[in-house]
């Protein structure tokens, strides 16, 4: 691919930042699965089953999803009991109310953390994840140590995230494998009675909605 020269010249390093660096280029050969993906994609396009624009568009769809959407859903559930009830009854429909579309046939079950139950989600087979509301999963979620240990020793895994669950609280692990995706509804932290919806949403991180940590008033993480 030819890179057009626009405004700066790499030979003189007089572009926006002031440190020299090697040309950004790929040096390693593509791996087995990457070659396979390219081959399948090119075959599908060549056979006119899908077009390049559909692939690009789907990437845009995925890129438009992030934990901020899930946080919005959780914050609304915290302040609106009727919405919370609808969310627990049918996660997908309730998210759609807030404009979060589902671009596939998956259903969403929202798992409410309570004083008695702490929920954790995993996909032991691969990487099922509530992408519509959270975007792409973190790498550790897709790797074998988390996938195998979350269902066999969830308390040890939680402890490694700094989350200690008392013995009288049930740890409930949901393994998503087929048509259902899960989203954890964390408990609303104490001392947030006066918080507005947006301020509440700022407490809801990706990891709280996977269930590896509780939502908390982590002072310093976000601006007051």
């Amino acid at each position, binding site marked *: 691919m030819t890179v057009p020269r626009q405004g700066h010249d790499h030979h003189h390093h007089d572009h926006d930042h002031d440190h020299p660096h090697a040309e950004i280029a790929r040096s390693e050969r593509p791996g087995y699965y990457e070659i396979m993906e390219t081959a399948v994609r090119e075959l599908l396009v060549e056979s006119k089953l899908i077009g390049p624009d559909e692939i690009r568009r789907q990437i845009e769809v995925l890129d438009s999803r992030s934990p901020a959407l899930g946080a919005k859903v959780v914050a609304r559930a915290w302040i609106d009991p009727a919405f919370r009830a609808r969310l627990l009854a049918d996660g997908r429909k309730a998210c759609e109310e807030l404009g979060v579309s589902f671009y596939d046939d998956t259903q969403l079950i929202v798992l409410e953390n309570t004083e008695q139950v702490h929920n954790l989600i995993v996909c032991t087979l691969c990487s099922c994840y509530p992408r519509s509301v959270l975007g792409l999963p973190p790498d550790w979620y897709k790797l074998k140590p988390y996938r195998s240990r979350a269902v066999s020793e969830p308390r040890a895994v939680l402890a490694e995230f700094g989350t200690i669950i008392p013995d009288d609280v049930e740890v*409930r*692990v949901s393994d*998503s*494998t*087929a*048509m259902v995706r899960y989203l954890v509804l964390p408990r609303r932290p104490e001392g947030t009675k006066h918080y507005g919806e947006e301020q509440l949403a700022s407490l809801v991180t990706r990891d709280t909605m996977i269930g590896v940590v509780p939502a908390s008033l982590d002072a310093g993480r976000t601006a007051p």
Partner: protein
Amino acid sequence: MQGESCGGAKARSGIVYALGEVPVFRPGDRIRILTRSPIGHYRVPIYLRGKTGSVEAVIEPAGIDNEEEGYGRNAGEKLHYYRIALPMTEIWPEYAGSPRDGLRIEVFETWLERI
């Protein structure tokens, strides 16, 4: 997700349901996850095959058998997934956590037997 099954009330109205339209299992039913090892891509993890649990909920709507779909078969024929509850101690006899701890997983009707 719902626990209702289509029982007597609708039957009295003379409606006949298609094969597979009505969920075979109901919440509270005791089940075993089948031990099968078919060739292909299967959505039931090996660590749960042969384990016993109970139906927590019927997942609506019914879905196609995506394992068959992988071979281009069975399009249009739908059955239910069920949210199955299993105690961790049933899955792992040496489970180290609290005996209250449990697992939930959705399993397609063809992988369940009543016990």
